[in-house]
C-alpha cells in the first residue's frame, strides 16, 4: 500500500508549478482579469507545450492517458496561481464525457480533434445538477433548443458538449440559432455564459448519456475541489508570510497568539483535505464504486474549508486583504466561484446521502 504521489506525479505537478510561478504572478492575473486575452493565450500555449491538455486523453486517441488524479494535481496548481484556464471543462469534464458517453467512432473523431487543437470544448451540465426556472435543453429531430445555464469554458470553446435531457450533444459555437449571453461573475479569471439555443444542429452522442453526464459531473466536482484546494493553500501561505512581515505594536503580528491560532486552525483544517482530494481523484479511475460519493465528499468539504480559509486568510491580512493592492481577492473569489458550480455543499452532501441510500 502506498498512499501518496508517485515520482512522476510529483514531477508533473512541479513542472506545472514552475511554469505558472513564472507565468501567472499577480501582475499577469490582473491583466487577464481586465480582459486582456493575449496574455491568457500565451499562458494557454505554455500549458499546451507542457502537454497539459493531453494528460487526461487516452493514449489510443493520442493523449497521455493519465487519470483524474493527474488532472487534479494540475488543476490544484491552476487554482494555486489563479490561472485563467478552462482546463476543468475543456480537458477534464469534456474528455471524461467523451470517454464514457459515445461510440468508438465519435470518440475517435472528437478526441482526435481536441488533440489536434482545432476543437476546444465548453461544457453545459448545470441542468443535470439542478435546473433553475425555465432552463434545460430538449432534443428534436437532431436539433437542440432551450437554455443551458452557466456553461463553463467559454474563454476558449469552439464547441459545446451539452446535457440535453437524456442525451448528450455537441454543438458548434458558431452554428445558427446559438445566442450567447456573457455572465459577469465574481471570478474574472474564468468565463461562464448562458446559451440560448433555437433548433441548433448538433451531433448527438451515441451510447448512454446518463453515465457520461454523471462522470462529467463527478470529474468536474473533483477538479473544482482541486482548484479550491490549491487556492486555499496559497491563501494560507500568503497569510503566514504577511503575518511574519507586518508589524503592529512593535512586533510582527505573527507573534500574536490570536493570529497564530487563526493560521493553525487554517492549517489543521486544510491538511486533511489534501488526502481527501488525492483519494477522491484516485477513486474516479481506480475505485469506481466509490467515485461518485468521493467526488461529493471532496467537493463539499473542500468548499467549506476553502470558504473558511478565504475568510480567515483575508482577516489575517487586515485591511490590506480587503484592498486590491495585494490581489488576495482573486483567490477569495476563485474559491467562491468553485463552491457554487456543479452543486454547492448542501447539494453535494444531499447527493452523497442519496448515493448511500440515506435519502431519496
Amino acid at each position: 500500500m502506498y498512499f501518496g504521489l508517485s515520482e512522476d506525479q510529483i514531477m508533473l505537478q512541479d513542472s506545472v508549478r514552475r511554469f505558472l510561478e513564472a507565468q501567472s504572478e499577480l501582475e499577469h492575473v490582473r491583466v487577464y482579469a481586465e480582459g486582456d486575452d493575449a496574455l491568457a493565450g500565451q499562458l494557454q500555449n505554455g500549458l499546451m507545450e507542457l502537454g497539459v491538455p493531453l494528460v487526461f486523453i487516452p493514449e489510443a486517441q493520442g493523449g497521455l492517458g493519465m487519470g483524474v488524479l493527474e488532472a487534479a494535481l494540475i488543476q490544484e496548481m491552476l487554482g494555486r496561481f489563479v490561472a485563467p484556464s478552462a482546463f476543468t471543462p475543456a480537458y477534464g469534464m469534456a474528455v471524461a464525457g467523451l470517454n464514457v458517453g459515445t461510440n468508438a467512432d465519435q470518440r475517435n473523431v472528437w478526441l482526435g480533434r481536441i488533440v489536434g487543437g482545432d476543437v476546444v470544448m465548453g461544457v453545459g451540465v448545470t441542468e443535470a445538477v439542478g435546473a433553475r426556472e425555465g432552463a434545460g435543453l430538449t432534443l428534436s429531430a437532431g436539433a437542440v433548443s432551450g437554455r443551458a445555464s452557466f456553461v463553463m469554458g467559454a474563454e476558449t470553446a469552439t464547441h459545446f458538449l451539452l446535457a440535453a435531457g437524456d442525451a448528450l450533444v455537441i454543438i458548434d459555437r458558431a452554428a445558427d440559432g446559438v445566442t450567447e449571453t456573457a455572465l459577469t461573475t465574481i471570478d474574472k479569471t474564468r468565463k461562464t455564459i448562458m446559451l440560448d439555443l433555437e433548433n441548433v444542429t448538433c451531433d448527438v452522442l451515441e451510447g448512454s448519456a446518463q453515465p457520461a453526464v454523471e462522470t462529467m459531473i463527478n470529474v468536474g466536482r473533483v477538479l473544482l475541489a482541486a482548484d479550491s484546494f490549491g487556492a486555499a493553500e496559497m491563501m494560507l501561505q500568503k497569510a503566514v508570510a504577511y503575518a511574519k512581515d507586518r508589524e503592529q505594536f512593535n512586533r510582527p503580528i505573527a507573534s500574536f497568539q490570536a493570529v497564530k491560532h487563526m493560521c493553525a486552525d487554517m492549517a489543521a483544517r486544510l491538511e486533511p483535505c489534501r488526502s481527501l482530494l488525492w483519494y477522491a481523484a484516485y477513486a474516479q479511475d481506480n475505485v469506481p464504486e466509490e467515485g461518485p460519493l468521493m467526488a461529493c465528499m471532496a467537493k463539499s468539504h473542500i468548499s467549506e474549508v476553502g470558504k473558511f480559509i478565504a475568510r480567515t486568510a483575508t482577516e489575517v491580512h487586515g485591511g490590506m486583504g480587503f484592498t486590491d493592492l495585494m490581489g488576495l481577492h482573486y483567490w477569495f473569489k476563485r474559491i467562491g466561484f468553485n463552491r457554487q458550480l456543479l452543486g454547492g455543499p448542501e447539494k453535494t452532501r444531499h447527493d452523497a446521502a442519496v448515493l448511500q441510500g440515506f435519502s431519496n
Partner: protein
Amino acid sequence: MNLDFTLEYQEFRAEVRDFLETHKDSAPRMSDRGVRSEKRRAWQKILLEHGYAARTLPKEYGGHGAAPDALKSRIIAEEFSRAKMPGGISGQGINMLVPTLLELGTEEQKQKYIEPTLTGEMVWCQGYSEPGAGSDLAALRTSAVLEGDHFVVNGQKIWTSTAAQADMIFCLVRTEPDAPKHQGISYLLFSMDTPGIEVRPLMTMTGQAEFNEVFFTDVRVPADQIVGQRGEGWMVANATLTHERGMLGDPDAALSRLNSIAEIMQKETVDGAPLMDNAVFRDRLIALQAEVFAMKFNGMRLTTSATQKKSGGMAGMIVKLQGCELNHRLAELAIDVMGEYGILFEDSPFIRDHGMWQTAYMFDLGLIIGGGSAQIQKNIISERGLEMPREPKVAKK
C-alpha cells in the same frame, strides 16, 4: 417592558410620516445621492428645517436645537427606513468632526466649520490610518513640522473615503517626534486644495474604490488650524472615535435583508421546487432569523438605555462585532441559496437584487477586518467589558 408608545411619541411618529408623505417628491433618487449632488443638499436643507437632520445640535451653529431624545431618533430612523426615504447627510464630517468641534474646537472653528458641514456645502474626509498604523493607530508617522506660522506636513494616509470629493480633511499628524507615541500627535484641519496633496483611489475586493490613499508632500497648514493643543491630538481623536458609535443607521436593516432572502427562497425554484423546500437552507435561515431578532431587541434595549441616559454597557459594546458578522452571514446564506446564480456580480445579466449580495458579502467582511477590526473589538469587549488585563508589554530583546 412596555412596547407601546405614549401619545407624545405616537404623535411624533405621525408627524414624521406626514412629513415624509408631504415631501416624498423632494427626496433625491438613488442615483442622485452623491456628496456633491444639488438635490441632496436641497433635501438636507428641508431635513434641517424640520429637525430630521442635526436634530440635537445647537441652533447657533445651524442645528435644530432639540433636546436629545433617543426614542424620537429611533422613530425617525424607523420611519425613513419604512418609507425607503434617504435620511440626512451622514459623512464623517457630520458624524465625527462636528461633535469633536462642539466639544473641543475654538469658538471661531465652530462658527466657521459646523454650519457649512451640516448643510453639505463643506465635505470632509478623515486622515487617521496609515499603511503602517492600522490597529496600532497611534504608531502613525505622517509628520508636521512647524516652520514659522505654518505646519509642513509630509506622509501618507490610507482608508480615506470621499477624499477625492472632499473640501477639507481632519487629520492626525506627528508634531512631537520625540514624545511617547500617544503624546506626540496633533489634530489638524486643512483644505484638500492645499498644494502638495495627491489622492489615489484605493480599489477593494468589491471592484470599487470605496477608499483612497492620500499623499502629503510639503503641505503647508496654517498653525492655528489645530483642534486642541499640540500633542493632544490622540485625545481629540478619541473623542471623535467615541462619536463614531452613533452611526448606526437603519435599526432594522438586518431584518430587511433577512426578509429579502426569505423572499428569494419562496420565489425561486430548483428542479421545480421552491428553494424554501430545502430543509437545510431553511434551517440556516431560521437560525439567522433568531440572531437578527436578538440583535433587534438588543437595539431596542439600547434605545431605552439611551432615553434614560444610561450606558448601554455590554449590550452596546458588542453591536459592531455581532452586527457586521451577522450581515456577512446573511449575505453568505443568500449566495448559497442562489446556487450558481450566487456568483453573478456587478451588472451581470440574470443577477438578483442588483448584485447586492456578493458586494455585501465582501464589503461586510471588509467592515469586520477593517478600521476597528474584529480583533480590536474583542480586545475592547474583554478589557472594558469583562475587565480582563491588557496584553503585557513585550520585553526588549
